[in-house]
């Protein structure tokens, strides 16, 4: 019984680490750049496939790919924001209209990225074995790769949190999140900061994708599920609250692993029920104002 509880707890934490990572990314893109990026999951999928290809073709360790995928996604995200979303921002009459338009444009991105991936990697399920030796955590047994993924997810999340809180750029981002106009007036290069935020969201997706590919089988169709989970976590933690997303990621991970223990088919339903009840009862989330 105790071992089962430990099993569920650790599985939940592992899942939660990934959830926290992807939710922080989405939260940055929506909370600051006001883009509800439904193609978020596609960046995760893309990074997962790049990691997979680098490992299976050249034998490059996924942990090294982490350092390739992250910056690559950052660059792609930054460029997409500068070309596509900034233009939409300039042409939209109000922020509400921009939000609607950017959501639809990101649907376009979703279809583009997903189908390019389908053309390159086909719809087959892919996977590879990396660090699979079992580790015994006082009775609960997990493969090494999952624990490594959890460790990296926690380190990256905390690192990012300190970046936001302690650095100048982090301060500029938080300022832009609160009052874009005023932040611009006080010398923050707002266009640059918004693009960086979108890029950082993609960076998180890149890290998450590399970690996911280590622990799970992947197809080009996995993206939307992660987007939805990220969206639920973001709403649970409160739009714009990075701390909220980090905590809620682990909460949802734990709920997921408890429900999965009861019946695996119920996990997604439980997520949606939480999501819908939350939107109705407290749309600002557990840490929202």
């Amino acid at each position, binding site marked *: 019984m105790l071992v089962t509880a430990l099993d569920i707890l650790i599985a939940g934490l592992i899942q939660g680490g990934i959830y926290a990572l992807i939710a922080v990314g989405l939260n940055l893109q929506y909370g600051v750049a006001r883009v509800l990026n439904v193609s978020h999951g596609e960046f995760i999928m893309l990074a997962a496939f790049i990691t997979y290809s680098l490992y299976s073709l050249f034998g490059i360790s996924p942990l090294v790919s982490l350092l390739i995928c992250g910056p690559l996604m950052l660059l792609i995200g930054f460029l997409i924001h500068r070309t596509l979303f900034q233009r939409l921002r300039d042409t939209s009459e109000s922020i*509400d*209209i921009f939000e609607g338009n950017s959501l639809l444009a990101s649907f376009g991105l979703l*279809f583009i990225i997903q189908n390019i991936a389908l053309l390159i990697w086909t719809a087959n399920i892919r996977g590879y074995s990396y660090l699979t030796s079992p580790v015994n955590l006082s009775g609960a047994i997990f493969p090494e790769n999952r624990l490594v993924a959890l460790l990296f997810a926690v380190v990256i999340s905390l690192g990012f949190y300190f970046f936001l809180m302690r650095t100048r750029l982090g301060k500029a981002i938080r300022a832009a999140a609160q009052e874009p106009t005023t932040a611009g007036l006080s010398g923050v290069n707002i266009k640059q900061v918004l693009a960086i935020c979108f890029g950082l969201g993609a960076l998180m997706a890149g890290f998450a994708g590399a970690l996911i590919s280590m622990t799970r089988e992947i197809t080009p169709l996995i993206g939307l599920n992660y987007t939805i989970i990220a969206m639920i976590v973001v709403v649970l933690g409160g739009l714009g609250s990075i701390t909220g997303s980090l905590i809620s990621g682990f909460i949802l991970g734990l709920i997921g692993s408890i429900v999965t223990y009861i019946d695996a088919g119920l996990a997604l*339903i439980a997520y949606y029920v939480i999501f819908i009840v939350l939107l109705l009862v407290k749309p600002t989330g557990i840490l929202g104002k």
Partner: protein
Amino acid sequence: MDISRFNSRRFLVTGLIVLVLLALLATLPFYGSAYSVILLTSIFMYIVITVSWTIFSGPTRYISLASAAFFGVGVYTAAILGKVLPLGVVIIIGALLSFILALFIGVITLRLRGMYFIIFTFGISELIKNAILFYETHFSLTVGRWVPRVDQTTVYYIMLAIFVALMLTTYFIRHTKWGLALQSIGQSEEAAAHRGINVTWVKVITFAISAVFMGAAGAIMATKWAYVDPRIAFNPLLSFLPVLMAIFGGMSQIYGPVIGAAIFTYLQEILVTKFAYYYMLLFGIILIVAILYMPNGLVGLIQKRRKRGPPEQQAST
């Protein structure tokens, strides 16, 4: 919106063209090939979903992603009741159930605006899909269901009838106070409320009316497909496609979404079997290009060409 149109010559000409088109469509099974009947059925299916979506989301600017839910409810009505009730009754029940679901969603989402409304409507469609999937795999022990098949010509006529009913409803809504109320809600909900418009009532009822046609379309399409499962019936694409088709066509005129849906469905029919991935890729590219460069859709481009005075008041997002 202008009354002068009713007694102008242009109105007569438009009316005549519409009648001729209708006559051609109604007699299609007599001279067209079997394929053309099937093709037009699926074109009308998308037109119905897109135009219904535009009734509510066009003027109010609330982007609903619940189309798949309303369509799917119709599909499952046919799958469950198709064997025991006559077709007409099944379609009406499908439409009614969608109406009730939309009323329910409408009433509980009153507090939600903008992004929250969008993700809520998407979430509820996915919740229903997953709940049915769970039920089928745990209690029915099969994922899919068989629906009594109806011949293609009957499906075509019923779809055409739904389309005509929908166009009449849309025309009626646009040319009455109800349509004006919807537009003013889209421009400013608070100002509309101050003008004495019962904002809640207008929004919820319009949303529910738009769902009626999607439900009916779902019920009749189920009998065409003969086999359905939750992933087909509640396919999220059914929520995304109408948005794209309406934007591509342009929402300022009644015919915009019709053209948008017709063009896209035709493209889909010729591309999807051989080049499915390229079709979806193209779909994504067109979506982005349309949002960036054609904010008023094809209708906007046509109106620009004509240069008939200042562009009309837009209802698009």
